[in-house]
């Protein structure tokens, strides 16, 4: 396999610039295949089969020979990191291909812990998945927990076709409550993008949390992975190299000198868990419908609106006590043509109530994937 190597130059922010520079200065830009993990699932003899599984430190895949009932055709992939967590400066990039008609589940063994950051380094994870025709990908990890001062960025890009199905759960808890860490990390950023085959964006979501501290000089590379998508040629360059070059050579830094105007702990109020569920595909219409009905019923029961209660004539220090804030709130939104997609957003005071919600709402996946999620 070839090695991708290039010099990092000041003020170069585009890979296309690097290619131009490389061509001009006689450097050769060659294919690099230095991702941390790559899995391909294809139909072999009519069954979903792993035809390629590559992983290297710090990533590890565990693929049980048989998960769930014998009757279901599905492949379960457990993804873990050595040491059980993500250490400052880790950069993990992973490719996943789910071939036509295949069913794949990507999950974790335990919550992903992101340890405190050293210096200005940011830990990053990148997943690029491609889902084929009539294929199903179910991504059901445990939540991410960022420890105090951790800096973490993750990006998941899914390329689907019109009859693909995708279930994606992405969630985060506020930290180690026992140690008093409540939304105490420096940075958490999560991007989930879904594109249709022709490149049309269906769902683009990035959530970014900053602590109250001022940040500066945080090196973030995978957030530039959109450059890979825009690459004018067929080469794929993984920024893992860029990290080591950057540390040695000229730093190409994404300067993010911002303090939070709305400190995270304050904007999260008493909520300890933020979760998002995306359900895409006409085959999963029954699950979408059930979630929408259940959430609507649950929320309508809890909500009362009375605009007269909040008369401005009340003195600020009156004995009016506001009702307890709801301990679990959720809302649903459709997206895409003919509402083919559904996104559910949740804020909860406890992790257990979210697990319980996920168990209940995703139980309908069992016939498709062999085991009920989150049990």
């Amino acid at each position: 396999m070839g090695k991708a190597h290039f010099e990092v130059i000041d003020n170069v922010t585009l890979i296309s610039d690097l290619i131009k520079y490389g061509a001009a200065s006689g450097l050769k830009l060659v294919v690099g295949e230095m991702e941390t993990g790559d899995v391909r699932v294809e139909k072999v003899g009519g069954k979903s089969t792993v035809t390629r599984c590559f992983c290297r430190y710090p990533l590890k895949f565990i693929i049980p020979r048989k998960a769930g009932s014998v009757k279901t055709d599905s492949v379960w992939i457990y993804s873990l990191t050595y040491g059980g967590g993500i250490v400052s400066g880790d950069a993990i990039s992973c490719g996943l291909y789910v071939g036509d008609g295949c069913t794949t589940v990507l999950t974790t063994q335990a919550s992903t812990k992101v340890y405190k950051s050293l210096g200005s380094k940011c830990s990053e994870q990148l997943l690029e998945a491609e889902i084929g025709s009539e294929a199903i990908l179910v991504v059901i990890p445990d939540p991410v927990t960022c420890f105090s001062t951790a800096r973490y960025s993750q990006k998941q890009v899914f390329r689907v076709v019109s009859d693909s199905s995708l279930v994606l759960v992405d969630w985060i808890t506020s930290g180690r409550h026992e140690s008093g860490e409540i939304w105490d990390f420096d940075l958490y950023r999560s991007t989930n993008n879904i594109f249709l085959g022709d490149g049309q964006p269906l769902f683009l979501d990035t959530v970014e949390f900053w602590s109250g501290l001022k940040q500066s000089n945080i090196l973030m590379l995978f957030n530039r992975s959109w450059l890979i998508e825009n690459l004018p040629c067929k080469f794929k360059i993984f920024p893992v190299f860029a990290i080591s070059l950057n540390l040695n050579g000229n730093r190409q830094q994404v300067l993010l000198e911002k303090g939070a105007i709305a400190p995270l702990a304050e904007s999260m109020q008493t909520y300890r868990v933020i979760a998002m569920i995306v359900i895409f595909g006409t085959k999963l219409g029954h699950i979408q419908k059930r979630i929408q009905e259940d959430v609507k019923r649950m929320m309508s029961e809890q909500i009362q609106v009375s605009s007269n209660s909040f008369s401005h004539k009340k003195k600020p220090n009156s004995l009016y006590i506001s009702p307890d804030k709801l301990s679990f709130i959720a809302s649903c939104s459709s997206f895409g043509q003919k509402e083919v997609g559904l996104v559910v957003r949740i804020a909860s005071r406890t992790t257990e109530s979210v697990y319980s919600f996920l168990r209940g709402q995703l139980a309908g996946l069992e016939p498709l994937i062999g085991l009920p999620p989150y049990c």
Partner: protein
Amino acid sequence: MADEVEITGVGNKSASSAGSSLNWSQWQLLDSILPTGGFAHSFGLEAAIGTHFVCGTEDLRTFLTHVLENTGSLLLPFVYSASRSPDADTLRELDRTLDAMLTNEVSRKASIAQGSALMRVAAAAFTEIPSLKEMRSHFLGSGSVCFHHAPVFGLICGLLGFDGEMSQRAYVFITMRDVLSAATRLNLVGPLGAAILQHQISDVAEAVVEKWKNRAADDACQTVPLLDVIQGCHGYLFSRLFCS
């Protein structure tokens, strides 16, 4: 000599009158009397009251701060990019991206409603910019653009001649204006209280502009996702004053 002075005089006069006419257009764009239907949207405030997030003035101040910060991180990039290149192709591209980024159905529909109304008013009122009317007819015909609010606002600002920073500041201003207007109508605060709060919050609003200005649309993100959850609950309210 006399001729020279006269010519200079005429030159000065047209330069300052161009500047003044910019003022008139700017004030009109920021005035709540502009019929863009902004009064029908509460930016999630009604849902926040319904879910007991906002119960009084202090909560309102916090809520408003969060809305402004989220506006800065998610929508300012679109205003910025549109004002920098106020043309049809940029509008189509930004509109398409924002449509995929506004994953909350309530805010997505509100954005389209306000953007369409704004485009309609601007095309009718700012007749010195014929491209507005042309773009509007073209896109209405092709159906390829939803007319999301932030890019349309940026486009109009750019075509009127406002610089990028002014356009972005203006967008944060109208967001603040509309939330406070909704708060008054929801009886959360009186008109005088709202005016006082608006002046107090202007420091925060300026900080939001400073922090989130001049970013690319691809970098847009949500910084207060709790707002997304809350605003999505708008449809579950038993009785509603607002559309969103």
